[in-house]
């Protein structure tokens, strides 16, 4: 199952919660669609959201949940 997972940046619509509340919500959002989905980072300033390892099915489930704006596949930048 792990090998089917890819990394995604998840943008959320939460703006009124405290950081602690947001972070808890991010964790529970992933847990609600996946027993083994892993949150990589919870962001506090650069975006409202988090990054996680998800399967394509989990992406579909998460994308349909209230408060989720977009689930964007990881991209790779390169030093120039």
């Amino acid at each position, binding site marked *: 199952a792990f090998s089917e997972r890819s990394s995604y940046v998840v943008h959320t619509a939460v703006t009124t919660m405290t950081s602690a509340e947001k972070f808890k919500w991010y964790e529970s959002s992933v847990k609600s669609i996946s027993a083994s989905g892993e949150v990589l980072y919870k962001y506090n300033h650069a975006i409202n959201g988090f990054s996680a390892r998800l399967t394509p099915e989990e992406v579909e489930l998460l994308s349909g949940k209230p408060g989720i704006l*977009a689930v964007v596949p*990881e991209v790779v930048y390169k030093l120039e």
Partner: protein
Amino acid sequence: TTRTPTFLGLGDNVDGEDLRHNGSASDVIVGVIDSGIWPESKSFNDIGFGPVPISWKGECEEGMNFTASLCNRKLIGARFFLKGFEAEMGPINQSDDFRSPRDSLGHGTHTSSIAAGSAVKEAAFLGYAAGVARGMAPLARIAMYKACWLGGFCVSSDVLAAIDKAMEDNVNILSLSLALNRLDYDKDSIAIGALAATEHGVFVAAAGGNDGPTSSSLANVAPWLTTVGAGTLDRKFPATIILGNGKVFPGESLLFQGNGLPDEMLPIVYHRFGKEVEGSIVLDDLRFYDNEVRQSKNGKEPLGMIYANMVFDGTELVATYAQSPSAVVGKEIGDEIRHYVITESNPTATIKFNGTVIGYKPSPMVAGFSSRGPNSITPEILKPDLIAPGVNILAAWIGVKGPDSEFNIKSGTSMACPHVSGIAALLKAAHPEWSPAAIRSAMMTTAKTSSNDGKPILDSATGKPSTPFAHGAGQVSPVSAFKPGLIYDLTAMDYLHFLCASNYTSSQIKIITRIEFSCDRSKEYRISELNYPSFAVTINRGGGGAYTYTRIVTSVGGAGTYTVKVMSDVKAVNISVEPAVLDFNNVNEKRSYSVIFTVNPSMPSGTNSFGSIEWSDGKHLVRSPVALTWT
């Protein structure tokens, strides 16, 4: 870096009057998102530095071969982000990289020292480019955010985490020498994170990419980013190639250790024919610019190498480390040497190496590899914003890779970007009240469009005059940027209006800005109204013949009367400015003006035209580049 401070007008003497503007730069923190740092480098010594700024909230994270005690009053913070990289690529091999802020590639050490390295006397790489090495802002503080790992790859979740932490730590400047082109803003973590940082008051500079000279190859094109292209220095490492038939050709030396070649003429063989190489000079085709020439043919070391370009006939040749005495030549000369080697029964040659030469004209030239506009995401925003030195740049290096040297010479828009980041730190120190957009405006409107021979900047890829699609506003000119006279400022609301004008949905706008904002359907948003210090006009065939752009300038130089001068290179365009005179009575006064581009809409698709709009009060010259494209 050696030479670039002087080349840009800042001078080499860190103790002298040339850094009079730099008095409070020690309060400015430059965050660098890159491959880590080699803290033992002399470029990060903190001799003479006072306590870290009280605004600093960051840390020196410990890890493999990196303890917190390696940070000091110069390198005030170092963190690393690899959850995303390891999740995608698997655990890092700890014999190849350090699970810590320590740099195993050299890139981050190089770029951070370019931005804000301390002064180091007698710096050189294998004897080349010798001098005092210093960053653009040698008194500023450095914070390294390692988010790029083996192969120079940086995944977006790690980059976003680095930006997030840099904002929390309170950096003032962010320098990102990494890129990926053709990403829409709502899919681009650099663009999204940089907008949040900009709204937080952080100036963000980013490399424009090394995919030139292909058109529309630029990356990092969002209007809140300062996009940096690369130019050459007035420094060369020349070599002379002498053939057995008496012909003499100029080339460029690669960087090697030890003596040159013996005095006598040597046999020269063509690598393509796979002949023996021992005791010979080998001629090899250089098909692609990759910044790393191949070494050691057929498993045997030749006495010397001549790399002959096959791709473009530019004169710009990038120096890199070589194991044996080597030179590079352009395509035209390469063809002559190839012809000689193929047709002569016993061809011979030698190479004379002439060390480091300063004062080469013309310079700067736009580097052939520097990515080009037009902007592929928003053609109405001219990119790159400006160029800075990015060819054959000497800066600090690591102790574990490549040649055993404290410094190394590298090329790329990665090297140009931190020049601008460091200069932004100087401007932030001198004008702490300036917004990130004001700092960029000051650099753009005072940038130089001519080279050191007084003629327009040339493009290495063509040998012809460069255009704003290659050099933007021109080469950064830091001393002029301290007193720009007028600035074009921008706020977060301006960027929201820009996104409305770009037809982003409310949901996309919320992703990019984190703000709940609905575009007013009754309002006509126009990208042409974004208060940008340059003009890009996209003309639709068969469309109307007049395009109006509005701008607001703020006086930062106090009272003055500015008159406008318009330059345009083709008769198919008439550019008028209303009003043509702007009066300012006090500092911070704002005045608006409109530019009307009246064009012949039936010009062939793909036609470009360039020009400029210059405001002057006799003391300041406030110049904006103009690019028109018929689609």
